[in-house]
């Protein structure tokens, strides 16, 4: 085991995948100079710091002209010729530029070509929410893409998962979208030194508990754990589950947990309407209704645009105090004075260019 940051783990997964299989290539804006930090060294010390361009050459890592639609479409074409592209789309808010290629092409091509097209392509994008980058950088668009059959959706919350899931994504013959939370970039965790992969559709029980199940997504996972620690002191035992992939979704693990605890809170940084939380709540309502002792509660982002103002933005996303309140609610405790809504003060600031 070694300690790695979330961002470092993504870089390591890319490097290992590139080394393991010559068909793996990386394309995107600003990848050659490693502007976003997952493609190796920088500046003069490039070679000794593991710079991808030096290591793999421009046959395998390429800056593209600024056209997301072409980046996505060309990667689809490359995948159909047998390459296994990793596409770095930098900001998740710019996936929309390529919506036709994602929805009509990447997602449907296997079907439209009678099963004869394979699309082993990974679309990585970073969600810059929580870092005061404004409405055009702060999207959390994974629920939108969950609604598109044919795409697999990955939302890692720890370095270990980021590395293992990305490796699986590269090795999968379906198009995969991974959504990386920039507030987690600097978070550290233990990661095996050897290569490994984490199968899709297997949730991780981050913390065991008996009173309430909290299903948490992306940056809400560490917040849910922090809330659970606080609640433990109050005598409430919280189980935290991280689905890790939203398509496929480990329904069994969630239903099993709720059938033991009888209560469900879903913490999801996406907008409330048609969020991943909405889907998970519906599944539990359908499959574990008999076990429920309280209504399901969603902790999500309100259906607003994301303000640029730091003062406003930090109140928006599921944080430890919102999650804590929701748990107290489902356990029947009267929430008289909610704790100050400032659980994300320590949010990491990032130097990535915008």
């Amino acid at each position, binding site marked *: 085991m070694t300690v790695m940051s979330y961002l470092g783990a993504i870089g390591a997964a890319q490097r290992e995948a590139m080394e393991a299989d010559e068909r793996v290539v990386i394309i995107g804006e600003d990848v050659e100079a490693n502007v976003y930090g997952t493609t190796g060294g920088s500046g003069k010390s490039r070679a000794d710091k593991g710079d991808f361009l030096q290591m793999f050459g421009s*046959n395998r890592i*390429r800056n593209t002209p600024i056209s997301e*639609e072409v980046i996505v479409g060309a990667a689809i074409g490359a995948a159909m010729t047998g390459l296994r592209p990793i596409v770095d789309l930098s900001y998740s808010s710019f996936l929309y530029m390529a919506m036709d290629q994602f929805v009509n092409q990447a997602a449907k091509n296997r079907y439209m070509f009678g099963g004869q097209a394979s699309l082993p392509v990974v679309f990585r994008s970073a969600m810059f929410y929580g870092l005061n980058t404004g409405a055009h950088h702060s999207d959390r668009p994974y629920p939108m893409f969950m609604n598109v059959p044919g795409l697999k959706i990955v939302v890692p919350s720890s370095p270990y998962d980021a590395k293992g899931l990305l490796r699986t994504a590269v090795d999968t013959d379906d198009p995969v979208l991974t959504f990386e939370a920039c507030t987690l970039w600097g978070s550290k965790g233990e990661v095996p030194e050897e290569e490994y992969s984490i199968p899709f559709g297997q949730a991780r029980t981050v913390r065991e508990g008996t009173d309430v199940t909290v299903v948490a997504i992306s940056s809400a996972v560490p917040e849910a754990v922090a809330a659970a620690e606080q609640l433990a002191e109050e005598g409430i035992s919280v189980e935290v589950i991280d689905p890790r992939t939203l398509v496929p979704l480990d329904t069994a693990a969630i239903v099993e947990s709720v059938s033991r605890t009888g209560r469900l809170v879903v913490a999801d940084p996406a907008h409330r309407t048609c969020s991943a939380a909405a889907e998970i709540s519906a599944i539990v309502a359908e499959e574990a209704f008999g076990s429920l002792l309280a209504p399901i509660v969603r902790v999500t982002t309100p259906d607003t645009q994301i303000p640029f103002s730091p003062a406003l933005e930090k109140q928006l996303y599921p944080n430890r105090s919102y999650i804590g309140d929701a748990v107290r609610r489902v356990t029947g405790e009267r929430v008289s004075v909610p704790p100050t809504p400032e659980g994300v003060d320590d949010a990491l600031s990032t130097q990535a260019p915008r």
Partner: protein
Amino acid sequence: MTPTPNPGPDFGPGLAEVFGPQQQDGGPELVQLLTPEGERRHHDDFDLDFSAEQLRGFYRDMVLVRRLDTEATALQRHGELGIWAQLLGQEAAQIGCGRALRPQDYVFPTYREHGVAWCKGVDPLDLLGLFRGVDHGRWDPRENNFHLYTIVIGAQALHATGYAMGVQRDGAVGTGDPERDTAVVAHFGDGASSQGDVNEAFIFAASYQAPVVFFCQNNQWAISEPIERQSRIPLYQRALGFGFPGVRVDGNDVLATYAVAQAALQRAREGSGPTLVEAYTYRMGAHTTTDDPTRYRVDDDVEHWKLKDPIARLEVYLRRNGLIDDDFQATLKQEADDLGHRLREGCKALPDPAPSAMFDHVYAEETPELRAQREGYAAYLGSFEEAGR
């Protein structure tokens, strides 16, 4: 499997090799009226007699917007702004284009057109308010005919084209009335020229002969990517393929930029359709305050472009011709200091928006669902006051 180091394909020669060494400095087609050394040049197609007043005005504008840029960069470093996109090096391109506008002309900027905003009478403090995250609508675009900033690369080229089609439909083109005929400007960068949005805007504008000027500041970089990755021909030449004229102007020469922009704007107002102006310039600073250009470019290039500074060359010309003196400079310096002071103090005094502001401007008619969320949030905040916190 051990990777075999593969250098990859050769993407072919750079622009300089394709078009001769001159291309590095803009090439033979570059319209220039003032050389980097401050010598006045004549141009057959684009030349104007500039009054002393006008020239001093250009100089003053450039000095002041550079000061605005320096102050904003410093404010960002001190944590007072979320981010700042520097215009350093692009002052002439922006002032030249901005000063060629008539009041009714409408501008669609990117996030870097602080100099054009200045010419359009937008209070620089309002620009800072935007970058501080206080308010997205700090200036009324209808008042100044200067639109709000656009972040998604290239999107505004489409809006400008649609706006120009609207102008055309209103009959505000080709009437011969200088106060009525209107041009629209779409600003964008060399990187944006690769976007489908920009190319599709070209097609629409040409198809409808819309009164729009596509003003591309080719500052040679799109974050870490050099112009060679976006285009294998000089950008202005692309216009021909879309069916309208393209001109490359020295974007560090405020006189030439003014002359070319004026001609293109006039063409639009007259109803002769779109023009692509490529203002050939250089991004002297970082992409934004979050960027570190030493990761991807060499100092030599920056040094080369320092010699072409837009302000220095005009200063040499004005001095040499006795159009400015020490008094003028002292007054201007005072004006710049006052501006700096006003911006520093004004920026820090800008208030945070009210908490409920985050629910504003999602819809014209708020939905019941959103209203419930707004009220829930207000009640939540209210519970703190109740508890005396």
